[in-house]
C-alpha cells in the first residue's frame, strides 16, 4: 500500500469504511479505490442498508455517505442518526449537492462530486489518524 498524498499509512488491521451510495458504478469506483489503498469497504446501496450494517456486529471506523438516495432517509438524516447513536464513528458526506450549512456536528467532512480520490483519501486518512491520536 502506498502513501497517497503524503497521508499516513494505515497501521495494522485495516480500517473499515461503510460506503453509502445509490449509484452502483460510483459505489464500485469508490470501493475499488479505497480497497486498493488497503481499506476494508462495506458497500451499502442506501441508508436503510447502511443502518442494517450499523446495527450489526460489524466493526466500523468511518461512514461515507451520499446525500440524495432512495429509501426511508437521505444521507444527511443518516449522518444525524450516526452522530446520535454511534458518536465514535467518523462521518464523511460525499455529494454533488452539498448543503449550504455544513455543521461539524453533522459530519467530520463534506466533499463534493465529482470526487477526487486523492482528496477523499487524504480526508479519510486524516480523520482516522486523529481518531487514533496519531500526528
Amino acid at each position, binding site marked *: 500500500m502506498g502513501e497517497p498524498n503524503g497521508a499516513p499509512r494505515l497501521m495494522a488491521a485495516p480500517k473499515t469504511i461503510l460506503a453509502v451510495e445509490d449509484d452502483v458504478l460510483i459505489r464500485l469506483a469508490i470501493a475499488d479505490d479505497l480497497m486498493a489503498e488497503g481499506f476494508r469497504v462495506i*458497500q451499502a446501496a442506501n441508508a436503510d442498508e447502511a443502518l442494517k450494517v450499523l446495527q450489526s456486529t460489524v466493526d466500523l471506523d468511518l461512514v461515507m455517505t451520499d446525500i440524495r438516495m432512495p429509501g426511508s432517509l437521505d444521507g444527511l438524516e443518516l449522518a444525524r442518526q450516526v452522530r446520535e447513536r454511534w458518536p465514535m464513528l467518523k462521518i464523511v458526506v460525499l455529494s454533488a449537492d452539498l448543503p449550504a450549512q455544513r455543521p461539524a456536528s453533522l459530519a467530520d467532512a463534506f466533499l463534493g462530486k465529482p470526487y477526487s480520490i486523492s482528496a477523499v483519501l487524504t480526508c479519510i486518512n486524516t480523520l482516522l489518524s486523529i481518531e487514533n491520536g496519531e500526528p
Partner: protein
Amino acid sequence: MANPDHPVPIGAGVHTVLVVDDEILIRFQISSYLRDCGYRVIEAADIDEAMIVLNEPGLAIDLVLSNVGIGGRMDGFGLARWLRANKPEVPVILVGSPARAAEVAADLCETGPMMTKPYESEILLDHIKRTLAERGSLASGILGNAVAVLTRAGDVTRAS
C-alpha cells in the same frame, strides 16, 4: 489447459464475479470471502443494479452469483433468462438461501484460486459444475448457458 499442480497466485489472472443480493450483510460476507480468494467482486443490491453493471462496457463479468428472490425489475430467474439471451457466455448460479450462497462461494473459493492459467470462464464453470456434482446436488441442474438453481432445501430446480 488448467493444471492443478500449478496454482495461480491470488490476484493473478483475476476473474470478476458479480454478486447480486439484496441482503447487505450476506452480500458483504460472500463478497469479502470471494475477494479473500483472489476474485474481483462487484456487488449489486438488486437486479436493476446488476443490469447496469452487466451493460457497462468497461466491466467484464465472468460469473454471476445471484439470489433467486431478489427485487428489482425481475427476479433471479429473470436475470438468468436475460443473461442466457444476451450474454450466454456468462455463467449464472442462482441461490435460494444465504447458506447455499455461502456453500457456493466456498466451492468457488476452493476451486478458483487453485486453477492455473489460462482458465476461461468455461473452465471455471466446469470446476463449479464438477465441484457441485461431487456434492451430489447438481445431477441435472445445469441448463443452457449453465444456470444452476440451488434452492433453500438444497434441491436443483430448472429455470424456465
